[in-house]
């Protein structure tokens, strides 16, 4: 169902950065979707995976990464975070779909590097949850050092942030936070309904105008309606050009939102966080709605007090598309640890666990054609770990995007060593000078 929307927003925007050539040799290849190769190679030409297999001959002059004894997995995709942006919320008003993360990118955010150190190659960076209707999100590749434009993943679905529950109703904000409508869940629903109704009205006004304009005898003095960016965004949602990604916690508010989505005919791609998803697996599976969640962070708010660690595994087993997210710049470094916990809490298999941070978020974001697994034809987004990625003892040693090495622990260690050496030399000089 999501592919329909993928097609409508596909664009061949690969003109900016041409990928590199790279051959990764002798690693333990975990493709995630097509099994494991105990000792194999991955060949990337022009940033695209051209071959996966054993003993791939090296084209002349190609850069070779020796992955002997290391685990080669698809680059991790964080389906919900707030990094690489200036600001997170336009919280002065409750309804702000006109704001776009595209307009406030910050390619110099060190969190991008932090993400790379955790094997993350792509993120869905979003408006915060301060508003019932937030803004338009964006998907970025973690191309540290490149310009912001080069990081944008144009193939991704257009997504609009919604939020329900304590955050948009400002339940945990003291003082000034008790004055902005809405202050209750019923208000949150009502305001979303109001704005979508306004948007429908807006669309109708434009339809009438366009019909009149195209008619055989358009009326004299025909004027178009005022173009309203806020309404345009909601109209795009109603027309199916954008999907809703809705932050919710409780099962009940999530179901209310599903009803709203049916009332107005828009697509809910994912519920974000939703610790109570395990209570409504039937409805979520039936509607084809995915979830993007923490594995075990809970009890920090009342609405998170029934968040169980089995959520991810159980929902997966009930046919829901589940991804794990960081919601920030710290947890982003250990998404693979969270994936491992889904084996302990619920019994997912290794591949199922790895999918939670690779192909699943790729599908949710509409980029599974280009990323999320190690398959020929996909982009060369890869993370290399020194131990099995689901082991607590593992460490990401290298992160590659489209054949370019963006994070290399060996290089980092070398640079640190040189820096320490220089510092010691400087200190000796100072001491020498003092004498």
């Amino acid at each position, binding site marked *: 169902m999501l592919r329909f929307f993928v097609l409508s927003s596909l664009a061949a925007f690969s003109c900016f950065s041409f990928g590199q050539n790279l051959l990764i040799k002798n690693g333990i290849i975990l493709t995630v979707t097509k099994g494991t190769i105990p000792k194999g190679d991955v060949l990337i030409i022009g940033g695209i995976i051209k071959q996966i297999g054993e003993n791939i001959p090296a084209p002349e002059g190609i850069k070779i990464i020796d992955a002997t004894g290391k685990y080669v997995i698809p680059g991790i995709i964080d389906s919900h975070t707030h990094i690489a942006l200036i600001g997170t919320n336009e919280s002065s008003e409750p309804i702000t779909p006109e704001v776009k993360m595209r307009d406030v990118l910050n390619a110099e955010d060190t969190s991008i590097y*932090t993400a790379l150190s955790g094997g993350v190659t792509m993120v869905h960076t979003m408006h915060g949850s301060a508003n019932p209707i937030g803004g338009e999100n964006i998907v970025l590749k973690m191309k540290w050092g490149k310009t912001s434009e080069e990081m944008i993943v144009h193939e991704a679905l257009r997504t609009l942030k919604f939020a329900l529950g304590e955050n948009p109703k400002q339940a945990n904000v003291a003082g000034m936070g008790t004055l902005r409508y809405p202050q209750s869940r019923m208000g949150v629903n009502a305001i979303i309904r109001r704005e979508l109704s306004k948007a429908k009205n807006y669309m109708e006004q434009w339809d009438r105008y366009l019909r009149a304009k195209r008619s055989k005898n358009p009326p004299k003095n025909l004027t178009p309606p005022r173009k309203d960016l806020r309404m345009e965004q909601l109209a795009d949602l109603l027309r199916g050009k954008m999907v809703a990604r809705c932050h919710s916690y409780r099962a009940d508010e999530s179901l209310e939102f599903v009803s709203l989505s049916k009332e107005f005919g828009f697509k809910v791609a994912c519920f974000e966080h939703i610790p109570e998803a395990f209570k409504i697996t039937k409805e979520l599976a039936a509607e084809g709605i995915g979830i993007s969640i923490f594995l075990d962070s809970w009890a*920090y708010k*009342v609405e998170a007090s*029934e968040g169980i660690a*089995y959520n991810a595994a159980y929902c997966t087993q009930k046919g829901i598309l589940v991804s794990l997210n960081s919601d920030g710049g710290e947890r982003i470094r250990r998404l693979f*640890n969270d994936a491992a916990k889904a084996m*302990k809490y619920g019994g997912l298999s290794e591949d199922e666990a790895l999918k939670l941070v690779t192909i699943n978020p790729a599908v949710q974001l509409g980029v599974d054609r280009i990323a999320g697994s190690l398959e020929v034809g996909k982009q060369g987004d890869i993370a290399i770990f020194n131990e099995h990625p689901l*082991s607590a*003892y593992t460490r990401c040693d290298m992160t590659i995007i489209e054949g370019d090495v963006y994070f290399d622990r060996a290089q980092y260690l070398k640079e640190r060593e040189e820096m320490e050496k220089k510092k010691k030399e400087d200190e000796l000089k100072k001491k020498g000078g003092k004498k």
Partner: protein
Amino acid sequence: MRKRAFIFAAIFVLCLSFSLAQEKSPRIIAIKGAKIIPVVGEDIEEGIILIKEGKIDDVGKAVTIPADAQVIEAKGLFAYPGMIDSFSFLGLQEITAVRATVDSSETGRFNPQVRAVEALRPDSMHIPVARANGITAAVVIPTGGLISGQAGLIRLAGWTPDEMVVKNSVAMHIQFPSISRFRGREAQPREETSKQVEELRELLKKARSYQKIKEVAQKNTLLPLPEFDETLEFLIPVVNGQLPVIISVQADNDIKTAIKFAKDEKLRAILFGVTEGWKVAEEIKNSGIPVVFGSLYAMPSKWDDGYDAIYRNPGVLAKAGVKFAFSSSSASLAKDLPYHAAKAAAFGLDRREALKGVTIYPAQIFGVDEMMGSLEKGKKANIVLADGDILELRTNIKHVFIEGKDTKLSSIYEELLEKFKKRY
């Protein structure tokens, strides 16, 4: 008729004795066939642990199992000492955003009189979750102000606070004044910090003199007895060296100041946090002061410390010879204690040392190593049986014995899951 009555009576008695038997744990339990990792001493392949009256009676390869022992077949499993969380809010926090459910912090700058164990909520939903992951004891600790209060040691089992408390008071928590800008917090001016350290010194000095006056007055009843001073009273064990202080401190120069402070004031000390400890490893080693690490789920304060500064910190300090322990610094994520240790092992700490950092080292640091921290004869039977390495994320815990009792491993997680599995 009589036969029927007799049968009913017999059944009744049987049920009664059966239920009575359930009330009491079996006096002798033998865990048989597991690979034993005692942490102190060599690993034992397919060994036997004998539990008597809540204590480890024997551990070894060839241990005689008494006839009346309850035998738990543990072939293919691994036996570890129960883990100890060295800085925890278990039982003190329920839902962190709701003040009414948070009792880990008091208002005011000097609160040596408050005891974390006196705010314990044994019904906390977080305790079974942590216990189910192999944590059997925790140091619960108050925060806030300069002198936050007394940390206590609890077992993760018990219906009432009394049943949970192992030691009322294991350390006095001091949140050391910081001159360094740390994680976005603006630095206090140096004068302000020195002022606060001076205040602490003054307070300790007053405590010493208060103690002396009291002692003398007790011996000679003609002398005036000083007024009861709550603050000074509870600092007496600290200045005596009876109660160690656990000093929260992060930046390198603050660590040095704290070490000097402890030395000058002749305090038994433990350092907590020490995220920049790797910069002053030598100084910490030379001071002989052990450290407890906070949660490793944190970002380095300075970019040029390196992205892995927090992760490699334990390895560096361990290599320098500093005694250390790990903590969860949490209630809801106390269960992640072993994963902080494993993360440190991923970045340079020896794996066995990491295991010790959640077992024997915390026991030693808090002076309870005679009763816990390893699988040794005479210690409490705090034992974890797992299907793999307990520091590993994918390991499943099968049994958690706390003082010989095979505790319930289900928590709100399982309750809610089962409830909603029934939906359809």
